[in-house]
């Protein structure tokens, strides 16, 4: 039996304390221990980007981090984007994806959104080349990326219009 480690992690502004095995991946911690299943698990070896979260404000892949390493750190997941489930309360980034048809099955979308949130804050008016570079670490098997690029352009404009945005993370 492995030793359990007690970790305290702030996720989407709320503090959680759990006793966990050190080998537990951060992605599984979010999904199974905290029930935050918005973070998706695709490849589980750091290639597909579906599990991207913000760790202390920076996008990282939660499937190649240990949950125990998040002790004392702050995490944002896709659940933090919209205020609630009402369409009018979606984050402008989500509205951009919706309106430009930036998703089909939606599996990869949480990873794209969490990758793009800090990117658009740093690049409020990105070029297509910058957008393509920014999403190069996220795989999508449905869209062929063109609609995602369009969605990012649309979202960039929307985010500039609503600086504060309705969501908690904006």
């Amino acid at each position: 039996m492995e030793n359990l480690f007690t970790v305290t992690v702030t996720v989407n502004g709320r503090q959680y304390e759990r006793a966990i095995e050190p080998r537990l991946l951060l992605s599984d911690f979010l999904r199974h221990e905290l029930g935050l299943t918005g973070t998706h698990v695709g490849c589980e070896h750091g290639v597909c980007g579906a599990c991207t979260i913000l760790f202390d404000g920076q996008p990282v892949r939660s499937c190649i981090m240990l949950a125990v390493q998040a002790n004392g750190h702050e995490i944002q997941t896709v659940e933090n984007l919209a205020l609630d489930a009402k369409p009018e309360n979606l984050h402008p980034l989500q509205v951009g994806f919706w309106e430009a048809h930036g998703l089909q099955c939606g599996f990869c979308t949480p990873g794209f959104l969490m990758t793009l949130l800090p990117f658009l804050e740093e690049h409020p008016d990105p070029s297509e080349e910058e957008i393509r570079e920014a999403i190069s670490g996220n795989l999508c098997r449905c869209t062929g990326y063109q609609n995602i690029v369009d969605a990012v352009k649309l979202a960039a404009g929307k985010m500039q219009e609503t600086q504060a945005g309705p969501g908690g993370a904006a």
Partner: protein
Amino acid sequence: MKPPPFEYFAPTTIEEALDLLDEHGWDAKPLAGGQSLIPTLNFRLAQPAVLVDLNNISDLFYVRPGINGSVRIGAMARHSQVERDALIAERVPLVHEAIPLIAHAQIRNRGTFGGSLAHNDPAAELPAVTLALDGRLRVRSLSRERWVPAGEFFLGLFATALEPDELLVEVEVPALPPRSGWAIREMARRPGDFALLGVTAVITLDDENECQAARLVFFSTGGEDPTDARQAAEVLIGEAPTPDVIRATAETAASEDIDPTGDIHASAEYRRHLAKVLACQALEQALERVTTGALY
């Protein structure tokens, strides 16, 4: 796709980490950024009994000026930190230019300079760059400290001069001499993928515009990289770097210095072709940077 069980330690000082490595030896594995190690654990390609997590050792995360224009990089400086560091951009611009070629932003936010060198993936950029710039690596164990020149540190596929009780704590990258130029070139199918082949070039000219020093280091050739193309460098050293000489240098590198292998991504023949083309481009750009004085 879950890591096997291991004993986990998260020391907050270098000394504590060295104690743990001393105690557990081959059973222990230091955990730096984890961007290679954790996938390896997920696949269960490695099952270390003990993980010594370095992420809480605040003394290892830095970029500092060294003597004579050099830069000292703490082993746990993250790629994204090095990428944005003004001192790196000013003093060792080759490093600055190489970092964005490493994987994606998500990976660079966790991956570390020292971790990349200690892992010595043959497809990685930083071992090649550190070798081309003649960096030195400071290595500590409980009982001793030593500086290892990059040329003696990288020993082959995923192999380095590190003993099981040793930890890489710092890398010193010297400034280039005046009248030097540098470049890095790679071919990858998508931005952020491991390169099909890459090369970095560093050249220094003398007062007569002849090549005084030259370094051409390849990575991702499918062999035991980083590969220091010494025969190619000999073609260039002492010569005026005319287009003919540069072509001959690149051809020598591609035919004599590297021994590419083929895989599903690229045939050996294609890698040899890439080596010649990319070496030419890298040397031309390095030369351009000398003559236009755009170095610093």
